[in-house]
């Protein structure tokens, strides 16, 4: 097992002919992900890399291929529309890589998907990978290894850093998932913790949080109440000044709320192993396995 994606995932790439979409589609195909279709309006009928059919609309792509997931690489202005189009085409999982989505667009996307019971990961996220099974998004496959640690992170490249540290220390992963750095996202820490707890191929969980909001605090409460597997966690932004948005739209300390110190304290209270720096992940995980 793994969470959210596996070898049965049949993926449509929305924006397959763009610069990022085409680059990462190649990488996903190379990794073995079942990329069954692409969508770019006006390029219906073409083939990507001579094998993946391109459609004008998601509805056509899903009808023709039986796809059950989509990944989105379209520009921010069109990304919310792309999510909604995928939702209407009734895929079970939508992964939105695009960053810069207006947050009000997200307030409209969330209930649309909730009504259809569709999982959204992101936006503004690196996607996810279940090593050896499937990769959806942009996490570099070369840094991953099959194994039994689950990883969930609000960040992109910081995720890679941790995966890299784990892999080079011989610790493989069941699924690595970046949930995104925006204030409103489709899948949160608790959703992932719940899935990892239920996944019998996951033995331990790494949580990479950051300043802003209260998701980590709520996740810590969830861990204390519901997660029996060992969890270790990190909070980025210990040196961030309050009131400034640290790149991610969601990474902002408002007044005295959402600081790294507060979140690390919540982790400690919940029995989560707290990393002082990314490299601590290896030691903390090894202690707990």
């Amino acid at each position, binding site marked *: 097992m793994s969470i959210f994606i596996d070898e049965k995932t049949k993926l449509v790439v929305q924006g397959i002919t763009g610069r990022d979409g085409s680059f990462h589609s190649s990488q996903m195909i190379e990794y073995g992900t079942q990329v069954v279709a692409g969508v770019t309006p006006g390029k219906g009928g073409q083939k990507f890399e001579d094998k993946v059919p391109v459609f004008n609309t998601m509805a056509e792509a899903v009808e023709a291929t039986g796809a059950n997931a989509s990944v989105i690489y379209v520009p*921010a202005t069109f990304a919310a529309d792309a999510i909604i189009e995928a939702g209407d085409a009734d895929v079970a999982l939508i992964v939105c890589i695009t960053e810069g989505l207006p947050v009000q667009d997200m307030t409209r996307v969330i209930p*649309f998907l909730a009504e259809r019971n569709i999982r959204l990961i992101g936006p503004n996220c690196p996607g996810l990978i279940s090593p050896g099974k499937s990769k959806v998004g*942009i996490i570099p496959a070369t840094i991953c290894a099959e194994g039994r640690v689950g990883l969930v992170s609000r960040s992109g490249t910081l995720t*890679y850093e941790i995966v890299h540290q784990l892999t080079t220390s011989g610790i493989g992963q069941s699924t690595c998932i970046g949930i995104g*750095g925006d204030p409103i996202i489709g899948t949160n820490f608790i959703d992932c913790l719940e899935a990892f707890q239920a996944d019998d191929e996951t033995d331990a969980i790494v949580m990479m949080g950051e300043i802003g909001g209260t998701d980590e605090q709520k996740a810590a409460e969830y861990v204390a109440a519901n997660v029996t597997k060992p969890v270790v966690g990190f909070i980025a932004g*210990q040196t*961030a*000044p309050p009131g400034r948005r640290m790149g991610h739209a969601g990474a902002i300390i408002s007044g005295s709320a959402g600081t790294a110190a507060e979140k690390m304290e919540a982790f400690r209270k919940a029995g989560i192993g707290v990393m002082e720096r990314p490299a601590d992940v290896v030691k903390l995980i090894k202690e707990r396995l």
Partner: protein
Amino acid sequence: MNLHEYQARELLKEAGIAVPDGDVADTPEAVEKIAERLGGKVVVKAQVHAGGRGKAGGVKLADTAAEAKEHARAILGMEIKGLTVEKVLVAPAEDIATESYVGVIVDRESQRAVVMVSPEGGVDIEEVAAKTPEKIFKVAVDPRYGLLAHEAMGLAFELFDDIKLVRQAAGIISKLYQVFVSSGASLIEINPLVSTPEGTVKALDAKLGVDDNELGRKPKIEALRDLSSEDPSEVDAREAGLSFIKLDGNVGCCVNGAGLAMATMDLVKYYGGDPANFLDIGGSSNPQKVVTALEIITRDKNVKAILFNIFGGITRCDDVANGIVTALDQTEIKVPLVIRLTGTNEAEGIKILEDRGLSALTDMDDAVEKAVAMAKEAA
């Protein structure tokens, strides 16, 4: 992006919300003229992106146009929280019966826009929320239906008893939500919303923060940006598509990804150094971004060493390497560079650097330790 009060009230006025008469000016003489037109009894308000203007002396009442001119002379050019006052708003001094608060924010928890009202207006709403949370009333708006008529009425009944005032307030709340949506706001506030002894409800002060991600499709809002009120390096960074925040240390940081950038700053601190900035070159970078990033970092004379920490994903290591090489071709960088490069197209990136005689590390801790050491050496 934050709007000035005078800009925000203009948007409210366009939406049909009652705001007092008044105008903006940047000279004491223009202030005097406006005050004359308004009958002399006016309030002169500094237009800066900072709270606590009143306490800082940036808001003054005048009984005559001449007095308004004097106040303007004092306020224009003054500094409030590090920001110079370039403009003042001149508005008639209003008779006030009650002061309330009305605001709309994007709420992370409910994943919705939340409309908030409080009969405790004219004061810091966060203080009200902390001390007397029962005096704040909220509705989380279902975006599929928008703010419903009865929701606006229900909130208005928390502010007033008299149905005439209730209906005015409900109208203002509904319109405020409309402006929130149409302007792509992340925060909009009327504080205070006042009622006059004659029974009119008006927006006496307005605050509007726009989601930066909306600006691309809202050219009219974007045009309201006041560059003079922002740090020039941050303006340049934004225009280049970079996310940059100046800090006080001496280790310049250039990182891809906000989380990794924060973790890098944290690690600089961990190894005894001090980050000079937060800088995220973003995903999908092109070489030119890296050039601009280096240019902005090196503007800061405190910077004694520059640390690149790149973990390729959607960002490709070769793009970053090309950017570094191009930047070095264009300008001489006088401080040492420590480059950490790994992930997508890592081999290609390292090759590009090596061809230019640069070397790259692949471990983050090694790179940070080295940069901290170099900055200390140079300091």
